[in-house]
């Protein structure tokens, strides 16, 4: 996780506290919408450049897609159960869980719903990435290779990939990458659906 990401959020919080007037919050939804569209466009370009993904899915067999499905289902059900214990409404806890560790996108999307839910989504998904990086080597050793992909969620294709690759083998690294791509595609679809339940 990059220092500049935390810095951007902290700089925003400080300028929100001291510089921007409360009336600015009216415009935030629109600015986020424009920026989000731009970001998703770049993400699409990134996926389009990588022509290997489809071939990799074909050689591994389509059953490999059950792994991202399992991670998605487990993450959402898990956060609903956690949210139940904390007294959070199901739409909020499930949408936060559907961030799959991609803290920037899920938090940005949810901060349009409420700043507090956005903040919780950010911290939750940052925590998920940190816990993933710490637990992956142990899960790979004591539970199994594919299971080691699960904590990483959407970050299985980028920030967590080096850790997974080191803790497991080349085939698991490819499955991890595919899992990350599928989950990353699901985040901008599932988060708005779940929050509007």
């Amino acid at each position, binding site marked *: 996780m990059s220092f500049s*990401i935390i810095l951007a959020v902290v700089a925003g919080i400080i*300028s*929100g*506290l001291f510089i921007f007037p409360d009336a600015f919050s009216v415009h935030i939804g629109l600015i986020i919408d424009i920026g989000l569209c731009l970001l998703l466009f770049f993400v699409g370009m990134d996926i389009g450049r990588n022509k290997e993904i489809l071939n990799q899915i074909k050689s591994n067999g389509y059953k490999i897609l059950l792994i991202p499905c399992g991670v998605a289902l487990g993450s959402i059900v898990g956060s609903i159960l956690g949210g139940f214990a904390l007294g959070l409404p199901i739409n909020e806890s499930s949408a936060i869980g559907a961030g799959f560790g991609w803290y920037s996108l899920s938090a940005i999307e949810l901060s349009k719903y409420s700043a507090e839910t956005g903040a919780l989504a950010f911290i939750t998904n940052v925590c998920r990435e940190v816990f993933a990086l710490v637990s992956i080597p142990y899960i790979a050793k004591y539970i199994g290779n594919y299971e080691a992909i699960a904590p990483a969620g959407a970050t299985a294709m980028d920030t967590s990939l080096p850790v997974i690759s080191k803790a497991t083998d080349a085939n698991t690294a490819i499955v991890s990458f595919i899992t990350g791509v599928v989950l990353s595609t699901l985040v901008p679809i599932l988060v708005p659906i779940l929050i509007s339940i």
Partner: protein
Amino acid sequence: MRIILYIFIILAGVFISSKGKLNEMVEKNLSKLQYASLLLLLFIMGINIGINDSIINEFGKLGFQAVVLSLSSIILSVAAVKLVTIYFKHKEKAVQQDEL
């Protein structure tokens, strides 16, 4: 409706870059562009948090909730993948028995 827009935008990006229609300058700087728009968005999200006094006052509570939510997501997702791998092994065994 919003979701359709998001999917359309992602697919437009996939289409343009897979057809090799990317400007060389854009292609070279894609990750930088992506990162710059991300940082800007996070800055704005930060402003949104900073303006809201109740979040600042409840930061400790949010931290505790975040730990509970992230751990429960991780545990359940590992369990779900465990079920998937059990299914894989079960299927593999069935194929081997068929071959015998």
